[in-house]
């Protein structure tokens, strides 16, 4: 089955991204496809490469990036939500006159259309949030 996942909250403050990660991993391990993980609202904060969580705790951002690399997952940060919250890739940074970008490799920034499309194409949309 094709799953689309929507994550509404950022790392550490809410369990949403953890639950979504374990769900995604279980789906893949059981032969399903996760066709897109769409990060919305504060969920875009899962895509910054600047986090330094305690060494003895899970590294949420890296964990997503690693899973994406291993299984060719499409991790999408909503551009509008990312702009509001200061998550940018090099293009966005340049376009908006910022002096830095902070996106983690493995994530991409794109429009809400990607969420809608995922809703259309996937067999199941599962939302994790607050």
């Amino acid at each position, binding site marked *: *089955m094709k799953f689309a996942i929507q994550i509404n909250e950022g790392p550490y403050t809410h369990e*949403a991204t953890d639950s979504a990660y374990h769900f995604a991993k279980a789906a893949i391990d059981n032969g399903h496809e996760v066709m897109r993980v769409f990060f919305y609202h504060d969920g875009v904060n899962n895509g910054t490469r600047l986090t330094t969580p305690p060494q003895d705790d899970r590294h949420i951002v890296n964990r997503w990036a690693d899973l994406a690399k291993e299984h060719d997952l499409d991790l999408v940060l909503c551009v509008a939500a990312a702009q509001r919250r200061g998550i940018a890739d090099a293009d966005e940074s340049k376009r908006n006159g910022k002096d830095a970008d902070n996106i983690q490799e493995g994530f991409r920034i794109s429009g809400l259309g990607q969420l809608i499309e995922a809703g259309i194409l996937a*067999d199941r949309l*599962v*939302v994790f*949030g607050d």
Partner: protein
Amino acid sequence: MAILHTVNKSPFDKNSLERAFNTAKDGSAVLLLEDGVYGAIKGATSSAMVEDAMKTVKVYALSADLDARGISGRVIDGVELVDYAGFVKLATEHSQVQSWL
């Protein structure tokens, strides 16, 4: 096919569990996860609502979240424990997932 309803907040925090139960049609399923697993505790003021709902819908709880919270030994009889693979399976067996946040 029936819907899988998920609840991730404690019944003492939000009305999401109540909403899930009064929306879930007979034969559908409700999965408690994250803080929603507190809804599975027996002997609480929320327990009667859960036991009543269980007459018409199947109630599940994510074991990892129960363990994390140290409440695995306090679950209402009849609530079925599942792991993440079980969560995925429930999602495939139901027509869609309605997340009561």
